[in-house]
Each structure stands twice: as structure tokens, then as C-alpha cells.
């Protein structure tokens, strides 16, 4: 690998960090304008003026906003996300399990969805404009167009209630045997797969079709290669950059956008954790989760960028 690549990569990472800082400011500002304040949310109906004042003092809510921001940022950089206001638990510790669960679900959904989408995309290109292509596109688009809660409930109805093959609630816990855990996440993973499938499949199809018009593909066909070999050897490698991009976008969605699926299947992941704490105005947790989501999103995009550069000779060797 040559140094221009290293330089590009370093540039991207530096940009990412800068972006993350900007996001942290936004998150902090956003949580400041939520209605109500933490002290009130913690005490709830039982708040009296004295107890409110005491609690505000104790939580340091009386300091100006920028001081609180830097105090918080300092903690985050040193790995200390603070303690949850509502339960007094260490955020980093209680979030670890949740994050792991979310990643676990996202990983298995991706393991199914990404190859499936790409293969379906390739098949659609091979039989383009025929009934196979139309069937694949139609089904994939339909599954994406349905809202995810609808897909979730349909899956629950058939597989959990009617035929009772998989559990309808996906509660997982530490020390759960791997087999049981896989069985528990089967339905949410299927729902997520159906939701992200079409986007990746359509993008694969479009990107490859674009390349299929090039002269060298025609040459390959004239050489007598089979249709699949042309796609696999000549078209696909040159269409990989946009595909990686869309794959990464969908991976990010699998991690940060699964709140609804988590609620339907009662899956103890990050989304549910975030929602619980938003309703309690637990600002430190909301900030921490927001920041982690932003970091995941930004880093997956950096990976996509870098992969696209590495895959593209023109970007790898700029003039």
C-alpha cells in the first residue's frame, strides 16, 4: 500500500472525529431543549419545591450549559460515561450488555441480508427484465414498503402464535445457551432482513447494470463467457463501490434504527434502553447513547469510504 492511501485514510478518520465532536455539541444542545428538567422527571408527581432545589443542586443542574458540556466531554474521552440519574447505575456497565445484544442481532441479520441481497441482485441482473427479475424486485420492494411493525406482527402471528415454531418474544440474557439465543432472535432478525433487503438488492442491480453497458463487458460476452461469469468476473468488481456504500448504510440502520423491532419483540437492545431513558429525562444516558449511535454511523461511513477507495483503481492512484 502506498502512502497516498494512508494519507487519505488518515484524512477520513480525522474528519470523522471532527464530525463526532460537532455531533456531541448537537446532542448536548438537543437534550437541553427537551421539555421539563431531570430533577422534575426523577421526582415525578411527588416533587416539592425544596426537594427539587436540593436535587438540582446535587446533580449540578445549576451550572451554565457550556461548563456542563466540557465536564461531560472530558468524562466521555476518558471512558467515563457517568451514572444514570434515574437508577444511579454506571452507564458504561449497564450499556455494555445492551450494545452487545444490539450488535449480536445486527450481525446475524446482516449475515443473512447482505449475501442474500447481493446474490438476488446478481440473479436479477442475469435475468433482467424477465419475470425472475420482476418477481425478485417486486417481493423485495413490497417487504420494504410495509412498515417494520407490520412485518413484525405478521411474523409473530404465523411463526409464534399459529404454528409456534419460534418464540414471539425475544428476551435474551447473559449466559443463555447459543442455540436458544439464536432461536430467540430468529423472528426479529427475519423482520430486519426483510426491511433492509430491497435497498441493497436494488442498488446492486442498478450498479451492475450500469457497468454492463461498458465496452469491456461486450468484449467479455464476445469472448464467449457465460452470462454469470461476465457479471461475476467483470461487472461486479467494478460496481463494488456503490454496493459497499449502500451495505454500510444498511448496517448502520441495523444498529441504530431498530427501536420499533426491539419493542415488538421485547428485545433488550440499545433502542429500548434509549427510549426508557428519554421518558425519564435521564440526560446522561440519552447523551451517551446518542454519541454511540453517532460514532457507529460515522465509523461505518468511513469504512465504506475507505473500502470504495481501495476498490477503485482510479481513486487508489489519483493523477
Amino acid at each position, binding site marked *: 500500500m502506498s502512502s497516498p492511501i494512508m494519507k487519505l485514510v488518515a484524512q477520513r478518520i480525522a474528519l470523522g472525529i471532527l464530525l463526532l465532536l460537532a455531533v456531541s455539541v448537537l446532542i448536548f444542545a438537543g437534550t437541553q431543549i427537551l421539555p421539563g428538567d431531570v430533577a422534575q422527571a426523577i421526582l415525578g408527581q*411527588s416533587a416539592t419545591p425544596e426537594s427539587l432545589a436540593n436535587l438540582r443542586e446535587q446533580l449540578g443542574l445549576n451550572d451554565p450549559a457550556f461548563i456542563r458540556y466540557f465536564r461531560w466531554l472530558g468524562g466521555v474521552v476518558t471512558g467515563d460515561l457517568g451514572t444514570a440519574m434515574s*437508577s444511579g447505575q454506571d452507564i458504561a456497565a449497564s450499556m455494555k450488555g445492551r450494545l452487545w445484544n444490539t450488535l449480536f442481532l445486527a450481525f446475524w441479520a446482516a449475515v443473512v441480508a447482505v449475501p442474500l441481497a447481493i446474490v438476488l441482485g446478481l440473479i436479477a441482473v442475469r435475468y433482467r427484465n424477465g419475470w425472475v427479475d420482476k418477481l425478485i424486485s417486486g417481493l423485495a420492494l413490497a417487504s420494504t414498503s410495509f412498515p417494520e411493525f407490520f412485518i413484525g406482527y405478521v411474523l409473530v402471528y404465523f411463526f409464534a*402464535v399459529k404454528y409456534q415454531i419460534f*418464540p414471539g418474544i425475544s*428476551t435474551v440474557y447473559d449466559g443463555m445457551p447459543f442455540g436458544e439465543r439464536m432461536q430467540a432472535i430468529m423472528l426479529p432478525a427475519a423482520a430486519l432482513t426483510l426491511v433492509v433487503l430491497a435497498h441493497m438488492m436494488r442498488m446492486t442491480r442498478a450498479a451492475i447494470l450500469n457497468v454492463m453497458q461498458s465496452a469491456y463487458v461486450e468484449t467479455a460476452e464476445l469472448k464467449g463467457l457465460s452470462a454469470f461469469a461476465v457479471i461475476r468476473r467483470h461487472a461486479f468488481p467494478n460496481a463494488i463501490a456503490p454496493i459497499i456504500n449502500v451495505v454500510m448504510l444498511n448496517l448502520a440502520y441495523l444498529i441504530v434504527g431498530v427501536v420499533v423491532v426491539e419493542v*415488538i419483540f*421485547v428485545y*433488550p437492545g440499545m433502542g429500548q434502553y434509549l427510549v426508557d431513558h428519554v421518558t425519564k429525562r435521564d440526560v446522561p444516558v440519552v447523551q451517551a447513547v446518542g454519541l454511540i449511535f453517532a460514532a457507529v454511523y460515522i465509523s461505518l461511513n468511513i469504512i465504506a469510504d475507505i473500502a470504495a477507495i481501495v476498490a477503485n483503481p482510479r481513486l487508489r492512484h489519483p493523477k
Partner: protein
Amino acid sequence: MSNELEFLSRRVASGKLSRRDFLGRAAALGVTATFANSLLSSAARAAGPVKGGTLKAGLVGGESTNSLDPALFMTQVPFAFGKMWGELIVELSPEGSLENRIAEEIGSSDDAKVWTLKIRDGVEFHNGKTVTAEDVAATLERHSDEKSKSGALGYMKGIESIKASGKEVVLTLKEANADLPYLLSDYHLIVQPNGGKDKADAGISAGPYKITINEPGVRHGGERFANYWQGDKMGHADQIEIIVINDATARTSALQGGQVNMINRVEPKIVDLIKRLPGVTIRNHAGPGHYVFIMHCDTAPFDNNDLRMALKLAIDREEMLDKVLRGYGSLGNDFPINASYPLFTEIEQRKYDPDKAKFHFKKSGHDGAVLLRTSDVAFPGAVDASQLFQQSAAKAGIQIELKREPGDGYWNEVWNKQPFCASYWGGRSTQDQMYSTAYLSTADWNDTRFKRPDFDKMVLAARAELDETKRKAMYHDMAVLVRDEGGLILPMFNQFIDATGAKVAGWVDDPHQELMNGYALAKCWLEA
């Protein structure tokens, strides 16, 4: 015919006949499914509990922010789990009387100011220590301390001194209170070693189950505590588990799919559908909870009793009960007490009367619309109920303007702040508690701003009265005062609607809270 049925039901209870066969034969004998089911459950009770197995409940009302510190319990899951691992000083029986738990005997001085709790011998904590009078006293002390932020603080503040001596705890009250034992049945007052002063969220008490799993917002579980002091009455299943399922549809499908044995909060609008599912039994019963529209008696235009009366007469309670609760409730009568309270007296039912409402509205001299704030979170169906109210009032010539408020912040910004809004109350265990919490002039939660020195005096007098007949008469007078002059519009009392799956036996309706006052997992068992 009934002999045959009884015989068959005993066979089911002893495991010789399947439930489905029984229902089939019962139907052949021309008996309705409801009756056959109730026959079955009484036979199962008679046959006695079956030990063993795992009972699971899927419940709404748990968050990842929940703590095991009983002082901080607020929602349904910590409440129900607390009843599994915790033991109280005294509890309310399903019939409404007092059931002594850690206190073996509760006695008072003649003026109801000094109370003595005699502590039961041989009750053991999960950590092997014996429950002492000191532990009980320390528990009460901790909940009386502002710093504990205890949900029971409101009543505990009325205790002046707590002393443990030998096997007794002596409580001296600031003011006489004949209801003290009822107050001590509050679900927050779980007795902990040294009152939980060392570690409030250690999760150790003397209840029927020891905590084995505690993942807030996800699941909680326990295994039977071998040395539970009344193991014959509670703790039939070997293990119990509570899975937090906040989504109503997921809860139903978990019950249907057999992943849980019972669920809470079935929505009234789907009860009729769930009833038809095989094996599922709906457990609905009246409680003290109620849905309300509250007016501030000290804010214009609601400071005029004619206007308040006009609005009370302009609401069609029957229609609301029918359409919002689908009949799963009972009519309200503008005072917060119903038959689930001890010492309740019936008062003539207020009816929808547009003509009278019109008369009072005119007399009030108010002109123009009245602004009612409502929200989805005020109570399930609150927005629909408000619209029904708007329509029935329009027929009486009263214009109600609706403002739909966001659910976020409703309890901070609207309830107890704005002069007219929709809300709900979960109810309390005694009339005194209910009136002291929300109708005393000095109460923080006096959400109708009902400030009447004469009423306050009645509350205090009734509290100190030990003669039940006199007390009952006093509560009747208080109810009439609130009903006719207060700011409360109470269209309906809601019911607790739980559901159990196949093979769950031992269910006894309890009017105090959902899920048999939280004890369903400990008191029910799985039929063989």
C-alpha cells in the same frame, strides 16, 4: 346434572380428565363456558395447590431504570416483583380485611395515637437472619426519611416516633389515625434487614421467592425460598419469572404462544377477541382506580359551583363506560370512593341531564367555551372520552373546547397545574388515604384545589374515630360534599383486566390491585 359436572371437574383437578374434554362435556350438558370454567377453578382450589414448575408473567410497566430499592417502586413490574421477594408488616386480604404478616398482632391505644406491632417469631430473611423488631423499626424509619424519596413518605410523615423494644415496635403518631394498619400495608414498606439502611437495593427480605435474576427492564426471576414462613399458602411454583413486555400486542401473543402464563393490562377494546382464544381466561375485577376530569375550584370560571355542577350534569357516564371501557368498569358518581373501599355507602347515582345542566350553566353566568386539556397519557382512551364529553355537553348548550396536549410532560406541565384537564387515579386502600392524598386543603396532590376547612375537619375527625358506624356516617357526609361541591367529575371506575393461560389455577380476584394485588405468581400454580 350439576352432580355430574362436579364429578367431572374434580376429575380434571386430579388430572384424570383434560380441561378441553371437560369443557366439551360441560357444553354437552348445556352449560355455558364461563360457568364451566368457574366450576373448574373452584374444583382446582378444592383439590389444593400443585407444587413445582415455573410460572411466568409478561407485564407492562418495567423500565431499565427500575431499582430494587422498595422506596423507589412506582410502576407495575417492581410492584409485582416486590410482592415476590418482599414481605410486608401487614397486607390486605382479597376480602378487604387485614392479614397479619410480619406483625403477628397490631394493637392501639384508645385514642388511636399509639400503636404496637408484635413481631412474629421465626420469620427468616433470605440471608438466613431472623426478622427482628429492630429490622421493622429501621424499615419504617428509612421510609419516614425525606432522603429515601420513598413513595410512602406522605403517610410516614405522620409518625412521630418509632421504637423497638423486645418483640414489639411502638409507633407514636402526631395525630390519631384509626387506619394506621392499612397504611402499613403499602407495597413500598417491604421489611429489609436493618431496614435497608446498609444497602437499600440489596433485594433481601422474607418473601416467598429469593431473587435469582434481576435485569431491570428485561426480566426478573426468583426461586422458592425454602424457609418461607407460610409456604403452605404461597410459593407453589419452584421458579417464577417476570418478563417485561411493554407492547400490548406482544404481551397478548406471548400469552397465546404459551411463553408466559399470565399478563396484565389487557386493553378493553381487545378483551372480546382474547376471550375466544383457547385456554385463555380473562380475569377482570373492579378496583378503586378511576378516570377523572378535574376542575380547580379556586380558578375562574371553575370557582363557581353552578358551572361545576353544570359540567357534572353534562357528561354521559353510561355512554362513556360503554364506548371507552366497553363495559369493563363501573359508573362513577363524582366522589373517588366505590365499593372496593371499606366503609363505603351508596349515594344516589348522578345522571346525564342536559336540561338541568343548561339551567346551572345559565345560572353560573359564564359565557363562551370552557377549555378542557386532554392527552393520550391521561388514561387509556382519554381523548375519545373527552370528545364524548364535548358532544354530550354540546347537547346541553355548553361548549367545551378541547386542547390535546403532548404526552411528554403532561404530568409536569398540565396535571395539577391547568384548571381543567383529564387525569386518572389508581386509588388507595382506605377512604382516609384517598381523601388525605387529594382532597385535604394542604395536600400537594389536591388536584381539584378543593380547599374547605369544614371538609378538612371532617377528614381528621373520621381518621381518629374508632367506632365504625360513626365513621361510616362521616365518610358518607364527606362523599356528599365532594360530590356536590367539589371539582371532580368522575365518569367511571376502571377494572383491572388480567389474563391467564392454560393450566393456571388458584386465581382469586383481589380488588386492591391488578394480578391479585401482585401475588398472582406466588398464589397461583400450574395444574398437572
